[in-house]
């Protein structure tokens, strides 16, 4: 029984890595841009499809790097055309706008690539289990976890040590002041949005390697990602990472006892967190009261 729980907890960590990657991107965008990005799943799917198209030319590794960046570019265009105009308004509008964008992206993916499920080829050496008892620890899943941690660490380093990073952090705290100090906040917002989308793109390519591609693939991950942010704490990236891993593990363990409840448990955790400690585990007080 204990072994069962450990197995499932470990699984949950892997699923949680996906949630964490998505949540980090969402958190960035929510923090600085103040936008609840319902199209995040759509961008994730877009990156997966771009990777699918690129793999024959640049291989898996090339696609893993290029697709998220390309998607970030699309994110930039979207930000300029739609999101930018909604910064000063009630969050309702950006929520509805991104909701509509999600519909458009899904439809376009289906129109261009077809409704057919598509496989994404991953390198053979990753595609094997590491041992027969721990057969569910495949090279690929371990890779996903490692990449999630590495990219988050990379993001932290960037936020700490690069100029852009410092500005983003400062902007999260007080946008007006840094604008007064001479930072171009329009550029900052665009850069931040792009960064968030690149993370979504990364999650998308990785997910495609494990699950394959369908136009609706983004739908499944968007809600748990929101929950991850709320649980971990709005405004804290480490919190988003933790939040994602926590709900992944919780969901995994619940699956061992009561599979039907594996989704509900995520929302229960979120509900409890919102009532007891609305700022989340590591969030800042009063950020969105």
């Amino acid at each position: 029984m204990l072994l069962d729980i450990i197995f499932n907890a470990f699984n949950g960590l892997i699923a949680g890595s996906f949630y964490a990657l998505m949540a980090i991107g969402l958190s960035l965008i929510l923090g600085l841009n103040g936008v609840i990005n319902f199209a995040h799943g759509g961008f994730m799917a877009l990156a997966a499809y771009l990777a699918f198209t690129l793999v024959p030319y640049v291989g898996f590794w090339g696609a893993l790097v290029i697709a998220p960046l390309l998607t970030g570019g699309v994110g930039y265009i979207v930000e300029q055309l739609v999101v930018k105009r909604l910064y000063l308004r009630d969050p309702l509008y950006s929520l509805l706008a991104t909701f509509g964008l999600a519909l458009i992206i899904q439809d376009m993916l289906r129109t261009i690539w077809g409704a057919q499920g598509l496989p994404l080829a991953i390198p053979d050496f990753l595609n094997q289990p590491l041992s027969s008892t721990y057969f569910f620890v495949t090279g690929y899943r371990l890779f996903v976890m490692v990449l999630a941690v590495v990219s988050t660490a990379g993001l932290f380093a960037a936020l700490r040590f690069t100029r852009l990073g410092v500005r983003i952090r400062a902007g999260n705290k007080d946008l007006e002041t840094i604008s007064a100090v001479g930072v171009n906040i329009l550029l900052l917002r665009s850069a931040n949005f792009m960064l968030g989308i690149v993370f979504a793109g990364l999650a998308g390519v990785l997910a495609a390697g494990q699950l394959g591609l369908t136009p609706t693939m983004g739908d499944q991950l968007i809600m748990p990602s929101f929950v991850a942010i709320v649980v971990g704490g709005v405004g804290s990236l480490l919190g988003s990472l933790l939040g994602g891993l926590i709900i992944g593990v919780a969901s995994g363990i619940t699956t061992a006892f009561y599979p039907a409840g594996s989704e509900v448990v995520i929302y229960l955790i979120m509900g409890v967190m919102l009532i007891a400690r609305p700022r989340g585990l590591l969030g800042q007080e009063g950020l969105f009261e």
Partner: protein
Amino acid sequence: MALKTLQGGGYGRRGLLKTGAALGAAGLAGPVWGADTVPVKIGQIDSTTGNFAVLGQSQIKGAALAAHELNAAGGILGRPVQVLVEDDAGSPATGIDKAGRLLHQENVDFFIGTVSSAVSLSLSQFAEAHGKVFVCSGGHVDKLTGAGCNWATFRVCSTTWILTDGDSKTLYDKFGKKWYFLTTDYAFGHSEQADYTKQVTGYGGTILGGALVPVGTSDFSSYLIQAKAAGPDVLCLLLAGDDQINAMKQITQFGLNKSMAVAGALFELEQIAALPEAARYGVWTFEWYWNQPGVPHVAEFVKRYNTMYPGLYPSQRSWFGYVSVHALALAAKAANSVDSVKVAKAMEGLVLPPEIALQPGKPMFRAEDHQLLLGMFPGEVNQTGTYPHLMTIYDYVPGASIALSPSETGCTITYPS
């Protein structure tokens, strides 16, 4: 108007011109209709978006081909056939909405279609309430021709009993007695599992256990851990659409298919095409297959499908759509009317002629529950095959020999007075 027919299949204007040219060249350009001929309208409710889109689109293509053939041969009772397609997006509420539109605004005479069980149930109720025949092309839920049957609803695709009985003996003989289930937690999954359980224990096998998996699960690792621990001969996968694909990928990734046989019932050509080569394995029950050497008419049908949809081969879904339209045409001809009650009565006991049945047996719409007794094609997936050679069929099992008797289905049909 024909554009609307093809449009549903994502075909478009350019395709129409190509087809017109191709068919014209083949001497199949149809008769000219009188200026005031009212067409026979068939409303097709199928998924073009959502999780079942790829299956719905095959059904739409099959139906469109049937309509095209009918029109080339003079239509139904001298009137052209129009298939009007609406997207149900996999949602029963949307399905009913569209059905209402097709009924009140387009005055359709009949309904066909659906892939989702929920939509087929809601549409079946709607059709009965409004007195129009509904030929369910692809919704498998047992209730449709069981406890929830009605006079207006007919079904082309199988019930879960026919589906599971199609390969249960084959699997039992070939692989072993100890079974473990991985089942999607919804009515269709439950039905399949209950049916297999009954059949396998009847042969003398044992069910070691099973896991119920929520719809939309993408990560099967926890369930596969349990499955491996149970140590079955057969891991029976009864999963919905994309879930099945994910599970199969993960089974290969974990190397589980080396220690146990993986098999099940429903599996679609479109799904196999979505799997990477390493994940193509298993024994399944197909409800129709395009490659039937020695069976008359099949090769010509495949060729006509290729001509209309270059690069594509018909799947069982295409055949479902095809049969749905032709069955209506045959019944209307027999009844000499497009009145739904008369057509329904004419469809009871209707035997599909060989050029529509496209299989060795003689599928018939049973009068007691309006279920088509179609034949099953158990077979295994070709791991190294390229589209369309994705399956090797073992056998043909006529539906009449494996279907439940009418009294066991729980269906009673009453006609409106």
